[in-house]
């Protein structure tokens, strides 16, 4: 074997910069799940009866369901009785403004490179910060309120806007949708809520930063974004977790609703702890994300950069209900070390003249296994629909794998569905060419991989695109040298 590929093989070695944990005084629920635990969570949050009932119905449904087995993933069985379902940093005192955010939490976010102090942050991005089970701070609330935009933690939305939450909760992802969605519906603790009223363009990017801190816990957040007629919003989420030898479960649900001519752009940079070079530890990331283009000519666009987690299982999809609505999915998924990803999308075409675009870029390195799984479903009602899918895999080193499972169901003869796929390797020729020009092997690898992902990165908001490129370089660090 040539030295270049031998060096590439060492791609497994990578540094995780967010692996620290913070010593917070944390309020924990007892281990395991029961109706009592759900009532406890609900009581801690002071929830109304309808929500407790909904949780309990979800829990009962969950108990009749079993873990899905169709995915192309191998992992140790999850012991659902060994997980703490609620962990909240204890507030030192009731806080009324951001200035009163616990200094330790503030320091933790500073260390993550996210300042919760508004004046110091990148202007134009409002942040909801979620630690373990609760939201600890939301910035720019007043400024957003002036525009009529509601952006707050899910718990606060339940208290202050119960009618909105009740109208849309579970309307896109019903609790019976799948095993992990049912679990989330039973125990979800916090997350972000966003409501953009009719005709309003949200004046700034909204973002949620999710942080798992406590040990032995799972994170089950729920995000709900509603854009009314003609409204538009761009939302970003980022995630990190400490390095631990045990696996931690993250099972989130995200629901998006877009009315007539509304647009929602949802971007994710997922960097949960991926486990060490030998595959110990890391987050199990089982996530259900779906958007509903309820109105005519509405548009929902998912962009994801998945570099973290030991296991990734997620298929952000769009239900294209409104005539002329548009769904998009742009994805970069990196599996290095012993990481495994089974990810893709579902585009369900119901309305006439609906259009979807799927661009998936999968990168496998080390012993990583990367699976694209995508469903394009065109119902009998969906006249004149179009889908274009492009699915590229890049292999780095001899021990990784790339797999593609496209599912296409077409019930209307007028549909135009295109699927393109390719698999390539970072070639010795490319590396040598760059090195001959003086570019060191590590930088050259990173350049080639970033080039491969460019189509997706250009869909990300500016700050995120830079972050994503940096993250990819860090994740590939140690590839050589």
């Amino acid at each position, binding site marked *: 074997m*040539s*030295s*270049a590929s031998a060096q590439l093989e060492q791609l497994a070695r990578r540094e995780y910069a967010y692996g620290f944990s913070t010593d917070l005084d944390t309020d924990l629920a007892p281990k395991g799940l029961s109706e009592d635990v759900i009532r406890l969570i609900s009581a801690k949050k002071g929830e109304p009866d309808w929500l407790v009932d909904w949780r309990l119905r979800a829990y009962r449904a969950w108990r009749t369901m079993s873990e899905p087995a169709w995915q192309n993933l191998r992992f140790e069985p999850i012991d659902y009785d060994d997980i703490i379902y609620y962990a909240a940093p204890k507030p030192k005192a009731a806080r009324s403004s951001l200035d009163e955010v616990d200094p330790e939490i503030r320091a933790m976010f500073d260390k993550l490179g996210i300042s919760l102090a508004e004046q110091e942050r990148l202007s134009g991005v409002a942040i909801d910060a979620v630690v373990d089970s609760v939201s600890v701070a939301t910035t720019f609330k007043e400024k957003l309120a002036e525009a009529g935009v509601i952006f707050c933690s899910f718990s606060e939305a339940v208290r202050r806007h119960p009618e909105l939450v009740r109208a849309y909760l579970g309307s896109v992802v019903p609790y019976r949708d799948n095993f992990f969605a049912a679990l989330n519906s039973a125990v979800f603790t916090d997350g972000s809520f966003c409501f953009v009223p009719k005709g309003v363009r949200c004046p700034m990017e909204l973002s949620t930063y999710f942080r798992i801190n406590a040990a032995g816990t799972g994170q089950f957040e729920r995000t709900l974004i509603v854009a009314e007629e003609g409204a538009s919003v761009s939302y970003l989420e980022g995630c990190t977790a400490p390095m631990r030898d045990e696996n931690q479960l993250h099972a989130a649900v995200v629901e998006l609703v877009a009315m007539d001519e509304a647009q929602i752009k949802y971007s994710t940079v997922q960097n949960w702890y991926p486990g060490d070079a030998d595959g110990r530890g890391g987050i199990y990331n089982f996530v259900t994300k779906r958007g509903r283009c309820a109105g005519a000519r509405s548009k929902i666009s998912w962009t994801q950069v998945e570099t973290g987690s030991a296991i990734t299982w997620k298929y952000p999809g769009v239900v294209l209900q409104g005539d002329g609505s548009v769904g998009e999915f742009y994805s970069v998924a990196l599996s290095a070390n012993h990481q495994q990803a089974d990810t893709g999308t579902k585009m369900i075409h119901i309305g006439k003249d609906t259009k979807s675009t799927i661009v998936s870029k999968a990168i496998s390195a080390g012993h990583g296994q990367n699976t694209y799984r995508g469903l394009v479903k065109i119902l009998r009602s969906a006249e004149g629909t179009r889908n274009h899918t492009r699915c590229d895999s890049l292999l780095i080193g001899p021990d990784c794998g790339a797999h593609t499972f496209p599912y296409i169901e077409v019930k209307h003869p007028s549909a135009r569905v295109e699927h393109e796929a390719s698999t390539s390797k970072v*070639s*010795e*020729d*490319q590396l*040598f*060419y*760059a*090195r*001959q*020009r*003086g*570019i*060191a*092997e590590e*930088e050259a690898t990173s*350049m*080639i991989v*970033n*080039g*491969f*992902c*460019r*189509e997706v990165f250009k869909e990300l908001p500016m700050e995120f695109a830079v972050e994503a490129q940096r993250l990819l370089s860090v994740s590939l660090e140690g590839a050589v040298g």
Partner: protein
Amino acid sequence: MLVIEDLHAAVGDKTILRGVNLTVPAGEVHAVMGPNGSGKSTLAHVLAGRDPYQVTSGRVFYRGADLLALNPEERAAAGVFLAFQHPVEIPGVTNMYFLRAALNALHRARGFEEVGPSEFLTLVQEKMRAVGMDRALMSRSVNEGFSGGEKKRNEILQMAVLEPTLAILDETDSGLDIDALRVVADGVNALRRADRAALVITHHQRLLDCLVPDRVHVLVGGRVVRSGGPGLAAEVEAAGYADFSSETGEISEPVGATK
């Protein structure tokens, strides 16, 4: 500048170079000619440090130091440039970005300041005019979808921007029309300086009409079988390589294209 002593090299268990001796003094341009399979490209790749080629014996000195001890990027930093016979495509990486990354990598390695985007743009535009390169190609991905001629022009542009001390051109002239040949020749001529040198590898004499070399070496069967002045190129063109095969001595079987 470059001293090659009894160089033997192989790919796997196939020996290709069988004792190459060659000296290129500073300030000179030398041509290496030879039939297909004679080891011309292997020589170029060994000098640049390409992986599957193993040096089994012999030495190469570049400005007095052991060239073979350096990895490819160190050789580049030392001023060695290889214009590829088959330039490689890098999808998604723009030509402009790639070239600036290369120039700045060389600058960093040499302890110089990096070149900022606007300063670089000025530099590249000047060089692009010199090689007659279409501006649009700079914002396209490296060599992706370029015609054969555009790829070669791009190599010459890179050479012009990176200003190597030792330029090695591996059959850069193959498949080019006369105008493009002129660009290659001008590119090499523009770099001529007392402290630089070039090794131009070619199959045909055509390029050497535009680019008069100081010396011509004929490589057959993995060895330099004849060296001479610029006139040797014309002699080779007229007589073909067959006459030289007899001079290869102990090589019992014909090599490459003559097989």
